[in-house]
């Protein structure tokens, strides 16, 4: 699929540029006459066709501030086969993974990340959707310092039949971010609390620059062993004077969902309290 061919199929788009190409997915950046900067994703129909459709569905269902807005979807016959396509808002910025290569985030940014990510996940929870792949690669830090959640490719719709075979010993996800119940494919334990675990790991990594489950692990089994058996070290941040963020993160990364906040909404309330307390500290000139 070359750019002139794509341009011919989508005449309302201009300035097409290829952004990424994966196994089943080709992503272009473009400008749209009325919607501005957009991303065009073409998802090849394959054995995972239902999963692709669910990604599109998740994008449409979750209407919130920090998930790129889906403008339009459709189907298209391409030289490579039948595709589902979606055109969504393009977020100008960098992935959190790229940002983390230059070090940890400051405390204010970590708190903002926490509030914005949990707010997004609370929207997903309200629609009975679990993202299941929260990680720095799937977060964009935009030019205004806000955090966006991308890629609902592994999203689980709790009201729809699971697409992961029950007999599979391993679930979908990313080692070192996904919680034990997801990695072990304990499907009936999957709910919003699954994303809370990954959000906790992400917050820890952004606050310290390190992911203790992944860093210097020998192999995947070592990561899995750490996720299942090793407690995440408590956050020790100068700016987190009363340990409130450390407390919340310690709860998010508990091994069993029953030990985490019962809902994402509850975790968000907690995170907002931390934000308010931090704002008060900064306003009072006591930040370090």
């Amino acid at each position, binding site marked *: 699929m070359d750019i002139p061919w794509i341009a011919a199929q989508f005449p309302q788009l201009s300035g097409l540029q290829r952004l990424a190409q994966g196994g089943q997915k080709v992503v272009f950046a473009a400008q749209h006459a009325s919607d501005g900067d957009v991303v065009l994703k073409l998802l090849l129909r394959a054995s995972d066709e239902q999963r692709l459709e669910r990604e599109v569905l998740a994008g449409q269902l979750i209407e919130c501030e920090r998930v790129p807005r889906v403008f339009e979807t459709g189907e298209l016959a391409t030289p490579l086969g039948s595709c589902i396509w979606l055109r969504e808002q393009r977020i100008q910025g960098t992935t959190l993974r790229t940002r983390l290569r230059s070090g940890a985030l400051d405390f204010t940014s970590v708190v903002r990340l926490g509030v914005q990510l949990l707010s997004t996940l609370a929207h997903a929870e309200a629609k009975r959707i679990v993202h299941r792949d929260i990680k720095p690669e799937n977060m964009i830090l935009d030019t205004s310092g806000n955090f966006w959640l991308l890629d609902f490719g592994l999203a689980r719709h709790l009201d729809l039949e699971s697409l992961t075979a029950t007999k599979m010993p391993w679930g979908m996800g990313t080692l070192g971010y996904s919680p034990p119940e997801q990695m072990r494919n304990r499907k009936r*334990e999957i709910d919003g609390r699954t994303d809370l675990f990954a959000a906790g790991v992400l917050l820890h990594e952004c606050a310290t620059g390190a992911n203790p489950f992944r860093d210097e692990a020998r192999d995947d089994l070592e990561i899995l062993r750490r996720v299942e058996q090793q*407690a995440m070290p408590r956050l020790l941040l100068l700016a987190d004077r009363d340990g409130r963020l450390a*407390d*919340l993160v*310690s*709860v998010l990364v*508990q091994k*069993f*969902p*029953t*030990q985490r*906040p*019962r809902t994402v909404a509850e975790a968000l309330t*907690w995170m907002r309290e931390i934000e308010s307390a931090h704002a008060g500290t900064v306003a009072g000139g006591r930040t370090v």
Partner: protein
Amino acid sequence: MDLHLQFGYGMMDHCRHLVKSWSGGTVILSPRDLERKQLVKLSDEIRALPGGLVLLDPQFYLPRSDHARLTSHDYWPDSYQTNGFFGGPDMHKLMDAVLQLNRDVGAAAFVLPGLLATTIDDDWLGTLRATAERAATMDAGMPLYATVALNAESMRNTAGIQEVLAEFETLNVNGAYLLFEHPNGDYIVQDPIWLANALELSAGLRLLGKTVVVGYANHQLLCLGAASVNAVVSGTWMNVRAFSPDRFRAADEEDQKRKTVWYYDPSSLSEYKPVFLDAALRAGVLAGMAPPAAFGSSYAAALFSGVQPSSVGFGEQDAFRHYLQCLLHQARAARAATFDATVSGLRQVLDSAERQAGMLEKSGVLAGARKFGDGFDPVRSALSALDATRGAMLRRSWATL
């Protein structure tokens, strides 16, 4: 945290006396030890006292029990088949009869029949759900408490404990009546995992908004104050201070045989025979074993009157009442205004008790089988585990628990 009274052998008069003396209190009635008429009569007497309440534990842990009195109650099924009992009319009949008994005794809550879990699995969890769902349809007119009785092996199953909590997330009950079998028949548990799981289950249930009452407890479970447990339940003999399912399998004659009197020293969390109090007198350390005045126990006053303690006639009645009086005070003090203050307070009690017990031991005052000794570190370990898993949540929610 409150203290309830666990009914057991020889407990009737203690219940009446203590509830009166405390200006209120809750007695958990035991069908194993009383016939229906006696249950109703005792309940009437307790409830006639100011603040007197009763709960009734149907003790259906082992449906194939051969205990004559327990199985003579009209709610006990004539036959029991594991397969199908909890899914059909036999369970409905059981529940109807237990509810009627609860009404007859004027129970403050409906403690649901619950099986002893020898394994925490889907089958056992299914029985928990079945009774709760049935109870929810019965218009009981009182709070519903599900019984969670775990054997010693299940108490070590950390993942299983979480499965129980997951079940309770959607169980339509107001509370839980928890029973934990002690490992190896130990009075003082030395297994930190057992204790950590007791704390974890209790805290998890409290954070789900459930009332938690822990039956068959002794002073080691004062640590449950850190889980904001509503009440622990204790009584006279060791067999009502440590849950032992064997007691409900068949009648035993042990109750009547146990005649040793023990004095509970609340400062060392250990119990001593009067002859060792004589040794304490001789060593000049007896005064330090007296309960603080604030505990309000005068039952043991004679022991500290200056004469040989073993000669003052300190008997079973005073020993039991002294124990329960001290435990009431310690239970109520176990929970502080914050989670951190609670844990800190409990650690101080442990540290102080260990020092006291050590000092007494050096003076030749030995507690023997009732010493807390190997129980100190497991409790400390369990408190640390609770802090690691539930501390942040408890810290945040403490005021609302």
